[in-house]
Protein backbone atom coordinates (compact mmCIF):
# COMPACT_ATOMS: atom_id res chain seq x y z
CA UNK A 1 0.00 0.00 0.00
CA UNK A 2 2.77 2.35 0.91
CA UNK A 3 4.60 2.03 -2.43
CA UNK A 4 1.33 2.74 -4.26
CA UNK A 5 0.73 5.77 -2.07
CA UNK A 6 4.24 7.00 -2.73
CA UNK A 7 3.87 6.53 -6.46
CA UNK A 8 0.57 8.41 -6.54
CA UNK A 9 2.07 11.22 -4.48
CA UNK A 10 5.02 11.53 -6.82
CA UNK A 11 2.76 11.60 -9.86
CA UNK A 12 0.64 14.33 -8.34
CA UNK A 13 3.75 16.37 -7.51
CA UNK A 14 5.54 15.89 -10.81
CA UNK A 15 2.56 15.84 -13.13
CA UNK A 16 1.76 19.54 -13.17
CA UNK A 17 5.39 20.52 -13.63
CA UNK A 18 5.73 18.07 -16.50
CA UNK A 19 2.67 19.62 -18.08
CA UNK A 20 4.16 23.06 -17.67
CA UNK A 21 7.36 21.96 -19.35
CA UNK A 22 5.36 20.62 -22.24
CA UNK A 23 3.66 24.04 -22.61
CA UNK A 24 6.87 26.13 -22.29
CA UNK A 25 7.60 28.31 -25.31
CA UNK A 26 10.23 26.78 -27.55
CA UNK A 27 10.38 29.18 -30.45
CA UNK A 28 13.54 30.89 -31.52
CA UNK A 29 14.08 33.97 -33.61
CA UNK A 30 17.19 33.75 -35.76
CA UNK A 31 18.21 36.55 -38.02
CA UNK A 32 20.63 38.99 -39.47
CA UNK A 33 20.68 42.76 -39.27
CA UNK A 34 21.98 44.33 -42.44
CA UNK A 35 22.93 47.87 -43.26
CA UNK A 36 22.86 49.26 -46.80
CA UNK A 37 25.00 52.27 -46.04
CA UNK A 38 28.67 52.72 -46.91
CA UNK A 39 31.35 50.64 -45.21
CA UNK A 40 33.46 53.13 -43.34
CA UNK A 41 37.20 52.85 -43.02
CA UNK A 42 37.24 54.33 -39.55
CA UNK A 43 38.25 57.68 -38.17
CA UNK A 44 41.94 57.87 -37.29
CA UNK A 45 42.63 59.73 -34.06
CA UNK A 46 45.86 60.59 -32.34
CA UNK A 47 46.79 58.83 -29.11
CA UNK A 48 47.98 61.36 -26.56
CA UNK A 49 48.79 59.04 -23.67
CA UNK A 50 50.68 55.75 -23.38
CA UNK A 51 51.42 55.85 -27.08
CA UNK A 52 54.31 53.45 -26.57
CA UNK A 53 51.73 50.76 -25.86
CA UNK A 54 48.51 52.05 -27.43
CA UNK A 55 50.20 53.26 -30.59
CA UNK A 56 50.49 56.81 -31.85
CA UNK A 57 47.14 56.62 -33.64
CA UNK A 58 44.08 54.43 -33.50
CA UNK A 59 41.08 53.93 -35.79
CA UNK A 60 37.59 54.47 -34.42
CA UNK A 61 34.90 52.43 -36.15
CA UNK A 62 31.37 53.52 -35.34
CA UNK A 63 29.53 51.44 -37.93
CA UNK A 64 31.08 48.05 -38.72
CA UNK A 65 29.56 46.27 -41.70
CA UNK A 66 30.59 42.88 -43.05
CA UNK A 67 31.54 43.32 -46.68
CA UNK A 68 30.33 39.84 -47.61
CA UNK A 69 27.00 39.64 -45.77
CA UNK A 70 26.31 43.40 -45.32
CA UNK A 71 25.69 42.37 -41.74
CA UNK A 72 25.84 45.10 -39.10
CA UNK A 73 28.04 44.19 -36.14
CA UNK A 74 27.23 45.31 -32.60
CA UNK A 75 23.51 45.94 -32.99
CA UNK A 76 21.42 45.08 -29.95
CA UNK A 77 18.28 43.14 -30.83
CA UNK A 78 15.58 42.72 -28.21
CA UNK A 79 11.99 41.63 -27.81
CA UNK A 80 10.45 43.48 -24.90
CA UNK A 81 6.90 42.08 -25.10
CA UNK A 82 7.66 38.39 -24.60
CA UNK A 83 5.43 37.03 -21.81
CA UNK A 84 7.43 34.30 -20.14
CA UNK A 85 7.77 33.82 -16.37
CA UNK A 86 10.93 35.30 -14.87
CA UNK A 87 13.86 32.99 -14.47
CA UNK A 88 16.92 33.17 -12.27
CA UNK A 89 19.57 35.66 -13.30
CA UNK A 90 22.68 34.25 -14.96
CA UNK A 91 25.29 33.62 -12.27
CA UNK A 92 28.30 34.56 -14.30
CA UNK A 93 29.09 38.28 -14.44
CA UNK A 94 29.21 40.41 -17.54
CA UNK A 95 32.88 41.06 -18.19
CA UNK A 96 34.18 44.30 -19.67
CA UNK A 97 37.91 44.26 -20.24
CA UNK A 98 40.37 47.04 -20.96
CA UNK A 99 42.61 45.31 -23.48
CA UNK A 100 45.02 46.72 -26.05
CA UNK A 101 43.69 50.20 -25.25
CA UNK A 102 40.15 49.28 -26.21
CA UNK A 103 37.11 47.94 -24.42
CA UNK A 104 36.24 44.33 -25.12
CA UNK A 105 33.52 43.69 -25.96
CA UNK A 106 32.46 47.05 -27.28
CA UNK A 107 28.80 46.25 -26.61
CA UNK A 108 27.91 44.47 -23.37
CA UNK A 109 24.32 43.36 -22.88
CA UNK A 110 22.78 41.87 -19.78
CA UNK A 111 19.96 41.94 -17.29
CA UNK A 112 19.26 44.25 -14.40
CA UNK A 113 20.77 42.66 -11.33
CA UNK A 114 23.67 41.06 -13.15
CA UNK A 115 27.16 41.91 -11.98
CA UNK A 116 29.32 43.94 -14.32
CA UNK A 117 32.97 43.00 -13.86
CA UNK A 118 35.60 45.47 -15.05
CA UNK A 119 39.09 44.18 -15.78
CA UNK A 120 42.36 45.58 -17.04
CA UNK A 121 44.64 43.32 -19.06
CA UNK A 122 46.96 46.12 -20.19
CA UNK A 123 50.28 47.17 -18.69
CA UNK A 124 49.04 50.76 -18.56
CA UNK A 125 46.53 52.41 -16.27
CA UNK A 126 42.97 52.90 -17.44
CA UNK A 127 40.22 54.95 -15.85
CA UNK A 128 36.93 53.20 -16.56
CA UNK A 129 34.12 55.70 -16.27
CA UNK A 130 30.56 54.46 -16.82
CA UNK A 131 27.52 56.69 -16.70
CA UNK A 132 23.84 56.68 -17.59
CA UNK A 133 22.74 60.13 -18.60
CA UNK A 134 23.94 62.62 -16.01
CA UNK A 135 24.42 59.96 -13.36
CA UNK A 136 27.74 58.20 -12.77
CA UNK A 137 27.41 54.43 -12.52
CA UNK A 138 31.04 53.92 -11.59
CA UNK A 139 34.34 55.71 -12.10
CA UNK A 140 37.30 53.59 -11.07
CA UNK A 141 41.05 53.62 -11.54
CA UNK A 142 42.31 50.38 -13.08
CA UNK A 143 46.06 50.14 -12.67
CA UNK A 144 48.04 47.37 -14.40
CA UNK A 145 47.36 43.95 -12.86
CA UNK A 146 44.64 45.47 -10.70
CA UNK A 147 41.94 43.36 -9.14
CA UNK A 148 38.63 43.33 -11.06
CA UNK A 149 35.93 45.74 -9.97
CA UNK A 150 32.38 44.43 -9.75
CA UNK A 151 29.13 46.33 -9.54
CA UNK A 152 25.54 45.19 -10.17
CA UNK A 153 23.48 46.80 -12.90
CA UNK A 154 20.60 48.31 -10.96
CA UNK A 155 18.76 50.19 -13.67
CA UNK A 156 17.63 49.19 -17.17
CA UNK A 157 18.90 51.32 -19.99
CA UNK A 158 22.01 52.37 -21.84
CA UNK A 159 25.27 52.98 -20.00
CA UNK A 160 28.06 54.83 -21.76
CA UNK A 161 31.57 53.59 -21.07
CA UNK A 162 34.65 55.69 -21.52
CA UNK A 163 38.22 55.82 -20.32
CA UNK A 164 39.19 59.21 -18.93
CA UNK A 165 42.84 58.33 -19.51
CA UNK A 166 42.37 57.38 -23.16
CA UNK A 167 39.59 59.45 -24.68
CA UNK A 168 39.28 57.34 -27.83
CA UNK A 169 38.12 54.30 -25.86
CA UNK A 170 34.34 53.86 -25.94
CA UNK A 171 31.90 51.07 -25.19
CA UNK A 172 28.27 50.62 -24.24
CA UNK A 173 26.50 48.50 -21.66
CA UNK A 174 22.81 47.82 -22.22
CA UNK A 175 20.71 46.42 -19.39
CA UNK A 176 17.28 44.86 -19.83
CA UNK A 177 14.65 43.72 -17.38
CA UNK A 178 14.29 40.45 -19.28
CA UNK A 179 16.61 37.95 -21.02
CA UNK A 180 15.26 38.25 -24.56
CA UNK A 181 18.07 40.04 -26.30
CA UNK A 182 21.09 39.42 -28.46
CA UNK A 183 24.00 41.32 -29.98
CA UNK A 184 24.84 40.82 -33.64
CA UNK A 185 28.17 39.21 -34.35
CA UNK A 186 30.63 40.19 -37.06
CA UNK A 187 28.34 38.78 -39.74
CA UNK A 188 25.33 40.63 -38.41
CA UNK A 189 23.73 37.45 -37.05
CA UNK A 190 21.72 37.16 -33.83
CA UNK A 191 19.48 34.65 -32.05
CA UNK A 192 16.81 35.00 -29.35
CA UNK A 193 15.24 31.88 -27.84
CA UNK A 194 12.35 31.09 -25.50
CA UNK A 195 9.79 33.16 -27.36
CA UNK A 196 6.04 32.81 -27.04
CA UNK A 197 4.05 32.40 -30.25
CA UNK A 198 2.36 35.40 -31.78
CA UNK A 199 3.27 38.80 -33.07
CA UNK A 200 6.15 40.59 -31.38
CA UNK A 201 7.91 43.90 -31.79
CA UNK A 202 11.61 43.49 -32.50
CA UNK A 203 13.71 46.48 -31.44
CA UNK A 204 17.12 47.00 -32.96
CA UNK A 205 19.44 49.55 -31.40
CA UNK A 206 22.87 50.65 -32.57
CA UNK A 207 25.01 53.16 -30.69
CA UNK A 208 25.54 55.24 -33.82
CA UNK A 209 22.54 54.46 -36.03
CA UNK A 210 19.90 54.66 -33.32
CA UNK A 211 16.70 52.66 -32.88
CA UNK A 212 14.65 50.80 -35.43
CA UNK A 213 11.66 48.50 -34.88
CA UNK A 214 9.88 45.85 -36.92
CA UNK A 215 7.07 43.40 -36.20
CA UNK A 216 7.66 39.66 -36.51
CA UNK A 217 5.37 36.66 -36.12
CA UNK A 218 6.72 33.86 -33.96
CA UNK A 219 5.33 30.34 -34.61
CA UNK A 220 4.09 28.02 -31.88
CA UNK A 221 7.24 25.97 -32.12
CA UNK A 222 10.49 25.92 -33.96
CA UNK A 223 12.59 28.60 -35.50
CA UNK A 224 11.81 31.66 -37.58
CA UNK A 225 14.47 33.36 -39.60
CA UNK A 226 14.37 36.99 -40.63
CA UNK A 227 16.61 39.58 -42.13
CA UNK A 228 16.11 43.13 -40.94
CA UNK A 229 17.61 45.90 -42.98
CA UNK A 230 18.52 48.98 -41.05
CA UNK A 231 17.16 52.02 -42.89
CA UNK A 232 19.98 54.06 -44.29
CA UNK A 233 18.53 57.28 -42.92
CA UNK A 234 17.60 56.46 -39.32
CA UNK A 235 18.12 59.46 -37.06
CA UNK A 236 21.51 58.86 -35.50
CA UNK A 237 20.42 60.74 -32.36
CA UNK A 238 17.39 58.54 -31.75
CA UNK A 239 18.10 56.11 -28.97
Amino acid at each position, binding site marked *: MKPILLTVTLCVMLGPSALLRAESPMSTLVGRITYPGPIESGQVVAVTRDSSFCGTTTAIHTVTVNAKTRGLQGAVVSIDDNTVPATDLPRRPLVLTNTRCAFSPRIVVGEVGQQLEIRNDDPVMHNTH*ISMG*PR*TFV*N*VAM*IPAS*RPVEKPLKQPGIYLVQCD*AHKFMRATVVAFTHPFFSVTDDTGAFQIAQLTPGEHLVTVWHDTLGTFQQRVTIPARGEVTITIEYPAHVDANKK
Partner: protein
Amino acid sequence: MHRRVLRYLAILMVTGFCATTAQALRPKDGRDTITEGHRIYDRACVWCHGTEGKGDGPSGWSIGRYAAPRPRDFTAESYKLRSTPSGELPTDQDLFRTITQGIPGFMPSYRSLNEQERWQVIAYLKSLNPAFEQEQPTPIVLPSPPLFPSGNGITNGRALYAKYECRTCHGDNGAGDGPESKAGHLRDAHNLPITATDLTDPSSFKNGATPHDLYRSIMTGLDGTPMPAYADQFAGQEEAAWDLVWYLQSLSGQPGR
Protein backbone atom coordinates in the same frame (compact mmCIF):
# COMPACT_ATOMS: atom_id res chain seq x y z
CA MET B 1 54.58 64.04 18.16
CA HIS B 2 52.79 64.42 21.49
CA ARG B 3 51.15 67.69 20.36
CA ARG B 4 50.07 66.12 17.08
CA VAL B 5 48.46 63.22 18.91
CA LEU B 6 46.59 65.62 21.19
CA ARG B 7 45.55 67.71 18.20
CA TYR B 8 44.08 64.74 16.36
CA LEU B 9 42.31 63.52 19.46
CA ALA B 10 40.81 66.96 19.95
CA ILE B 11 39.64 67.06 16.34
CA LEU B 12 38.03 63.64 16.68
CA MET B 13 36.25 64.61 19.90
CA VAL B 14 34.92 67.89 18.53
CA THR B 15 33.82 66.26 15.27
CA GLY B 16 32.02 63.53 17.14
CA PHE B 17 30.30 66.02 19.45
CA CYS B 18 29.19 68.21 16.57
CA ALA B 19 27.90 65.25 14.59
CA THR B 20 25.96 63.97 17.61
CA THR B 21 24.47 67.39 18.32
CA ALA B 22 23.48 67.95 14.70
CA GLN B 23 21.72 64.61 14.56
CA ALA B 24 19.88 65.41 17.78
CA LEU B 25 18.46 68.58 16.18
CA ARG B 26 17.36 66.85 13.02
CA PRO B 27 13.61 67.13 12.34
CA LYS B 28 11.69 64.08 11.23
CA ASP B 29 11.56 63.71 7.47
CA GLY B 30 8.04 64.34 6.28
CA ARG B 31 5.88 66.65 4.24
CA ASP B 32 6.13 69.52 6.72
CA THR B 33 9.91 69.25 6.82
CA ILE B 34 10.11 69.22 3.04
CA THR B 35 7.78 72.19 2.77
CA GLU B 36 9.87 74.18 5.21
CA GLY B 37 13.00 73.09 3.40
CA HIS B 38 11.51 74.34 0.14
CA ARG B 39 10.86 77.71 1.69
CA ILE B 40 14.46 77.97 2.88
CA TYR B 41 15.74 76.75 -0.49
CA ASP B 42 13.84 79.53 -2.27
CA ARG B 43 15.55 82.04 -0.03
CA ALA B 44 19.07 80.63 0.05
CA CYS B 45 19.71 78.29 -2.88
CA VAL B 46 17.53 79.18 -5.85
CA TRP B 47 19.90 81.74 -7.35
CA CYS B 48 22.43 79.10 -8.30
CA HIS B 49 20.50 75.87 -8.24
CA GLY B 50 17.33 77.14 -9.92
CA THR B 51 13.65 77.05 -9.01
CA GLU B 52 13.43 73.33 -9.76
CA GLY B 53 16.85 72.37 -8.47
CA LYS B 54 18.26 71.71 -11.92
CA GLY B 55 21.37 73.82 -11.45
CA ASP B 56 20.06 76.47 -13.82
CA GLY B 57 19.62 79.40 -11.48
CA PRO B 58 20.17 82.95 -12.74
CA SER B 59 23.61 83.09 -11.16
CA GLY B 60 24.52 80.06 -13.21
CA TRP B 61 25.27 82.18 -16.24
CA SER B 62 28.52 83.09 -14.55
CA ILE B 63 29.07 79.85 -12.65
CA GLY B 64 29.68 76.83 -14.82
CA ARG B 65 28.77 78.52 -18.06
CA TYR B 66 32.02 77.77 -19.84
CA ALA B 67 33.96 75.72 -17.34
CA ALA B 68 33.29 73.34 -14.51
CA PRO B 69 31.85 73.26 -11.98
CA ARG B 70 28.24 74.01 -12.68
CA PRO B 71 25.74 74.29 -9.80
CA ARG B 72 24.49 70.82 -8.94
CA ASP B 73 21.38 69.51 -10.64
CA PHE B 74 19.63 67.87 -7.69
CA THR B 75 17.05 66.16 -9.86
CA ALA B 76 19.26 63.70 -11.67
CA GLU B 77 22.99 64.21 -11.40
CA SER B 78 25.63 62.42 -9.43
CA TYR B 79 27.05 64.04 -6.35
CA LYS B 80 30.72 64.84 -6.25
CA LEU B 81 31.32 65.19 -2.52
CA ARG B 82 30.39 61.97 -0.79
CA SER B 83 31.53 59.29 1.59
CA THR B 84 29.93 56.56 -0.49
CA PRO B 85 31.36 54.37 -3.28
CA SER B 86 31.50 55.69 -6.80
CA GLY B 87 28.08 55.75 -8.41
CA GLU B 88 26.23 55.95 -5.11
CA LEU B 89 24.22 58.80 -3.71
CA PRO B 90 25.59 60.81 -0.80
CA THR B 91 24.51 60.19 2.74
CA ASP B 92 22.49 62.77 4.62
CA GLN B 93 25.64 63.56 6.60
CA ASP B 94 27.51 64.24 3.36
CA LEU B 95 24.86 66.74 2.32
CA PHE B 96 24.91 68.32 5.78
CA ARG B 97 28.67 68.70 5.60
CA THR B 98 28.59 70.33 2.17
CA ILE B 99 25.86 72.79 3.15
CA THR B 100 27.67 73.62 6.38
CA GLN B 101 31.16 74.02 4.97
CA GLY B 102 30.37 75.21 1.47
CA ILE B 103 32.70 74.54 -1.44
CA PRO B 104 35.79 76.78 -1.56
CA GLY B 105 35.60 79.26 -4.39
CA PHE B 106 32.12 78.23 -5.52
CA MET B 107 29.50 77.66 -2.87
CA PRO B 108 29.28 79.65 0.33
CA SER B 109 29.01 78.11 3.76
CA TYR B 110 25.49 78.03 5.14
CA ARG B 111 26.35 78.05 8.80
CA SER B 112 24.06 81.06 8.87
CA LEU B 113 21.21 78.57 8.72
CA ASN B 114 20.72 76.81 12.01
CA GLU B 115 21.11 73.05 12.01
CA GLN B 116 17.42 72.34 11.87
CA GLU B 117 17.09 74.55 8.81
CA ARG B 118 19.98 72.76 7.12
CA TRP B 119 18.29 69.39 7.69
CA GLN B 120 15.04 70.79 6.32
CA VAL B 121 16.78 71.91 3.13
CA ILE B 122 18.34 68.48 2.82
CA ALA B 123 14.93 66.86 3.06
CA TYR B 124 13.72 69.12 0.25
CA LEU B 125 16.78 68.44 -1.95
CA LYS B 126 16.28 64.70 -1.59
CA SER B 127 12.64 65.01 -2.56
CA LEU B 128 13.75 66.34 -5.96
CA ASN B 129 15.37 63.04 -6.96
CA PRO B 130 13.32 59.81 -6.70
CA ALA B 131 16.57 57.85 -6.50
CA PHE B 132 16.83 58.82 -2.82
CA GLU B 133 13.71 56.77 -2.13
CA GLN B 134 14.96 53.80 -4.12
CA GLU B 135 18.56 53.60 -2.95
CA GLN B 136 20.17 53.31 0.45
CA PRO B 137 23.59 54.98 0.27
CA THR B 138 26.08 53.26 2.50
CA PRO B 139 29.26 55.13 3.41
CA ILE B 140 32.62 53.51 3.04
CA VAL B 141 34.54 52.70 6.17
CA LEU B 142 36.54 55.77 7.14
CA PRO B 143 39.17 54.62 9.61
CA SER B 144 40.88 57.06 11.87
CA PRO B 145 44.30 58.21 10.76
CA PRO B 146 46.97 56.06 12.33
CA LEU B 147 48.47 57.77 15.33
CA PHE B 148 51.80 56.14 14.74
CA PRO B 149 52.38 55.86 10.99
CA SER B 150 54.98 53.77 9.28
CA GLY B 151 58.43 55.22 9.31
CA ASN B 152 58.50 55.79 5.58
CA GLY B 153 55.02 57.27 5.24
CA ILE B 154 55.79 60.14 2.88
CA THR B 155 58.29 58.09 0.87
CA ASN B 156 55.72 55.35 0.43
CA GLY B 157 53.13 57.96 -0.45
CA ARG B 158 55.35 59.45 -3.13
CA ALA B 159 55.79 56.02 -4.67
CA LEU B 160 52.01 55.51 -4.67
CA TYR B 161 51.49 58.92 -6.26
CA ALA B 162 53.67 57.66 -9.12
CA LYS B 163 52.17 54.17 -9.19
CA TYR B 164 48.61 55.48 -9.52
CA GLU B 165 49.68 58.04 -12.09
CA CYS B 166 48.31 60.95 -10.13
CA ARG B 167 50.87 63.18 -11.84
CA THR B 168 49.04 62.75 -15.14
CA CYS B 169 46.41 65.20 -13.95
CA HIS B 170 47.84 66.75 -10.77
CA GLY B 171 51.38 67.20 -12.03
CA ASP B 172 54.78 66.08 -10.79
CA ASN B 173 54.59 68.35 -7.77
CA GLY B 174 50.81 68.32 -7.31
CA ALA B 175 50.25 71.79 -8.69
CA GLY B 176 47.38 70.68 -10.92
CA ASP B 177 49.58 71.08 -13.98
CA GLY B 178 49.73 67.50 -15.16
CA PRO B 179 49.90 66.93 -18.91
CA GLU B 180 46.24 65.96 -19.23
CA SER B 181 45.13 69.00 -17.28
CA LYS B 182 47.41 71.43 -19.11
CA ALA B 183 46.37 70.04 -22.48
CA GLY B 184 42.72 70.70 -21.65
CA HIS B 185 41.75 67.06 -22.01
CA LEU B 186 39.85 66.86 -18.76
CA ARG B 187 36.09 67.22 -19.00
CA ASP B 188 33.32 66.89 -16.44
CA ALA B 189 29.96 65.15 -16.90
CA HIS B 190 28.63 68.23 -18.73
CA ASN B 191 31.63 68.08 -21.07
CA LEU B 192 32.83 71.33 -19.55
CA PRO B 193 36.59 71.84 -19.24
CA ILE B 194 37.82 71.04 -15.77
CA THR B 195 41.25 71.33 -14.24
CA ALA B 196 42.89 69.06 -11.72
CA THR B 197 43.02 70.30 -8.15
CA ASP B 198 46.18 72.11 -7.14
CA LEU B 199 47.24 69.87 -4.29
CA THR B 200 49.70 72.48 -3.04
CA ASP B 201 46.80 74.75 -2.06
CA PRO B 202 44.56 73.04 0.51
CA SER B 203 42.28 76.07 0.70
CA SER B 204 41.03 75.11 -2.78
CA PHE B 205 40.12 71.52 -1.95
CA LYS B 206 36.40 71.22 -2.67
CA ASN B 207 36.02 68.06 -0.64
CA GLY B 208 38.01 69.34 2.34
CA ALA B 209 41.66 69.23 3.28
CA THR B 210 41.79 67.27 6.53
CA PRO B 211 43.44 63.84 6.45
CA HIS B 212 39.97 62.29 6.62
CA ASP B 213 38.80 64.42 3.70
CA LEU B 214 41.76 63.45 1.55
CA TYR B 215 41.32 59.78 2.38
CA ARG B 216 37.63 60.04 1.51
CA SER B 217 38.33 61.76 -1.83
CA ILE B 218 40.87 59.13 -2.81
CA MET B 219 38.58 56.25 -1.94
CA THR B 220 35.30 57.53 -3.34
CA GLY B 221 36.48 59.61 -6.25
CA LEU B 222 34.56 62.68 -7.32
CA ASP B 223 31.64 61.54 -9.43
CA GLY B 224 30.90 63.75 -12.39
CA THR B 225 34.60 64.53 -12.81
CA PRO B 226 37.54 62.53 -14.16
CA MET B 227 38.75 61.82 -10.60
CA PRO B 228 38.24 58.07 -10.13
CA ALA B 229 37.69 56.04 -6.99
CA TYR B 230 40.68 54.07 -5.70
CA ALA B 231 38.88 52.07 -3.02
CA ASP B 232 39.20 48.78 -4.89
CA GLN B 233 42.92 49.33 -5.45
CA PHE B 234 43.53 50.03 -1.76
CA ALA B 235 41.29 47.25 -0.44
CA GLY B 236 43.13 45.60 2.42
CA GLN B 237 45.91 48.19 2.24
CA GLU B 238 44.47 51.09 4.18
CA GLU B 239 47.84 51.95 5.70
CA ALA B 240 49.16 52.57 2.20
CA ALA B 241 46.24 54.93 1.52
CA TRP B 242 47.21 56.93 4.61
CA ASP B 243 50.78 57.12 3.34
CA LEU B 244 49.40 58.72 0.18
CA VAL B 245 47.41 61.15 2.32
CA TRP B 246 50.56 62.14 4.23
CA TYR B 247 52.41 62.67 0.97
CA LEU B 248 49.60 64.84 -0.41
CA GLN B 249 49.69 66.94 2.75
CA SER B 250 53.43 67.34 2.42
CA LEU B 251 52.95 68.90 -1.03
CA SER B 252 51.50 72.00 0.61
CA GLY B 253 54.07 72.09 3.35
CA GLN B 254 51.57 70.73 5.86
CA PRO B 255 53.03 68.56 8.60
CA GLY B 256 52.71 65.26 6.79
CA ARG B 257 54.18 62.21 8.43
